[in-house]
């Protein structure tokens, strides 16, 4: 009896000890949590409040108003910008997939010993500054730039092409920045595909193309989905490419926020626009979460 009591009490003590230790562990997370709550969570909430007319600018107000959102959604110009943002992001994502998938396929299936150097090449542009890359495209695309010179010397064209004053340069710049993310998302999934499944399909008489579309592609949908969500999200937040390669032809939400801030100082509207951008990203994150759940199931 006494023994049992001793055992139970020490078990209770041990359990209490473990709980205390768990609680102490939570303390370790406190600095990071407090820092991000203070300098990330609260500012974003404040921004949301500002977009509803609350808060500190231009004067403390307590009446909620949807005026900024109404202005944004009633004005055809702003609606056009929102539409353009979604269009640029979708098209960029589609192009990145069409270009990135074959490249990932070659890197996994055909590159052999070249795979590691190719991976290096794929990552290096990610680590050069975005300004360097847009500057490079401007040199290549300029009226008297490398591409126009080359094409004129070959007599393919007589007049220099106005590449920089079309939206083509923005799309090329965006694809250049984001396509490595697509390839990097597809490569690991493609590596995990059991090749015996493809061999079986071939043995059973399916051609190479049919095998690809009925076996390989469905098995790599997860990588495609991850890559697409990632690229779409990153495209939504980009503005340097539009700023330096767009020549005013492509105006998206981030660029407009940037311009609102630097030129017109319409803070309420800028807040509403960044809140909308945030909302698009949250929808993407939710989609990503659902995809992750699907993967686990």
């Amino acid at each position, binding site marked *: 009896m006494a023994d049992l009591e001793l055992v139970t009490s020490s078990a209770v003590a041990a359990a209490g000890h473990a709980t205390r230790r*768990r609680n102490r*562990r939570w*303390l370790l*997370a406190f*600095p*990071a*949590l407090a*820092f*991000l709550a203070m*300098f*990330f969570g*609260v*500012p*974003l909430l*404040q*921004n949301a409040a500002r977009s509803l007319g609350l808060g*500190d600018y231009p004067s403390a107000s307590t009446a909620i108003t949807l005026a900024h959102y109404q202005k944004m959604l009633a004005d055809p110009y702003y609606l056009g910008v929102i539409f353009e943002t979604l269009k640029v992001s979708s098209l960029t994502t589609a192009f990145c997939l069409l270009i990135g998938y*074959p*490249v990932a*396929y*070659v*890197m996994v299936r055909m590159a052999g010993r070249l795979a590691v150097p*190719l991976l290096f*090449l794929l*990552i*290096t*542009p990610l*680590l*050069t*500054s*975005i*300004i*360097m890359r847009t*500057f490079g495209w*401007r*040199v*290549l695309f*300029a009226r008297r730039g*490398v591409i126009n010179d080359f094409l004129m010397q070959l007599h393919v064209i007589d007049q220099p092409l106005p590449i920089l004053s079309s939206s083509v340069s923005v799309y090329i710049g965006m694809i*250049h920045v984001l*396509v490595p993310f697509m390839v990097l998302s597809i490569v*690991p999934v493609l590596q995990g595909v059991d090749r015996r499944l493809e061999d079986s399909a071939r043995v059973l008489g399916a051609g*190479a193309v049919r095998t690809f579309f009925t076996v390989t592609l469905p098995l790599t949908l997860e990588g495609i989905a*991850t890559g697409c969500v*990632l690229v779409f*999200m990153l495209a*939504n*937040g980009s*503005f*340097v490419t539009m700023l330096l390669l767009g020549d005013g032809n492509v105006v998206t939400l*981030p660029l407009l*926020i*940037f311009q609102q*801030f630097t030129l017109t100082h319409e*803070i309420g509207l800028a*807040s509403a626009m*960044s809140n909308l*951008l*945030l909302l698009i*990203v949250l929808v993407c994150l939710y989609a990503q979460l659902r995809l992750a759940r699907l993967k686990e199931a």
Partner: protein
Amino acid sequence: MKARLAAALVARHAGNWLLGSFTLLFFVFLVAPIAVVVAVSFTPQAAVSLPYQGFSFRWYARLIEYRPFADSLLTSLYLALNSALVAVLIAVPAALALGRNTSRAATATVAFLLAPIAIPALVIGLSLLYYLSNLGLGVSYTSLLVAHTVISVPYVMRTVLAVYRNVGSDYEEAAAVLSANPWQVFIHVTMPLIAPGIFAGSLFAMLVSLDNLAVSYFFGTANVTTLPVVMLSYLQNQFDPAIAAISTVQMLITIALLLVVERTYGLRALTTQ
């Protein structure tokens, strides 16, 4: 039968050839704008052009003449180092505290600590600007440091979490059974195990900080500002090869950092999401 086999072989050969050339073109596309900038940086001419005639370091000399480049490069490096340091100090304990906790609260907290990676930096920067101005920090080095730390935390968190979850708890339990106290376990067992993760995470955070424009743009002052901001305003005012030279210098620094990561941890850590 033989003819069909031959036709299939030819088709396959052609397919491979097509895929191979497509990939080759892709990598040319990927490298072209960067190679062009490096080439332009060595031009002897005053205008942006490829160095068709001669080869010169005059634009690298310009980097030393035009003070904002050198000053902001130093600010950027200093800022990248400091924000990574603060991020390590707060993110590593959090990763250790939450890494093996599967409760809902812990999972949600981890998601929150990783969130800044997913939110457009421009939105973070704009929101933080008004918030910090109300606190009286406004545009200053401190504000830059706070903003860059917010962005750095998820990168450190991500790699440390990955490594910590990967090594499992066996070693730490063994040490505890052998009567090491929690502090001894941390210093002699946990720390050496997660060191590569800390290292890779903070280097990656530094790389991101060095190239960040969207956040830095809001907090730079006339005296203290980062290199990308100086490059952007230079590019908007004049179009000369100095930008190519400073870009090349920055790329070399970045590649050096990347090689350090590769040597100590392997490139894989940078690609796992």
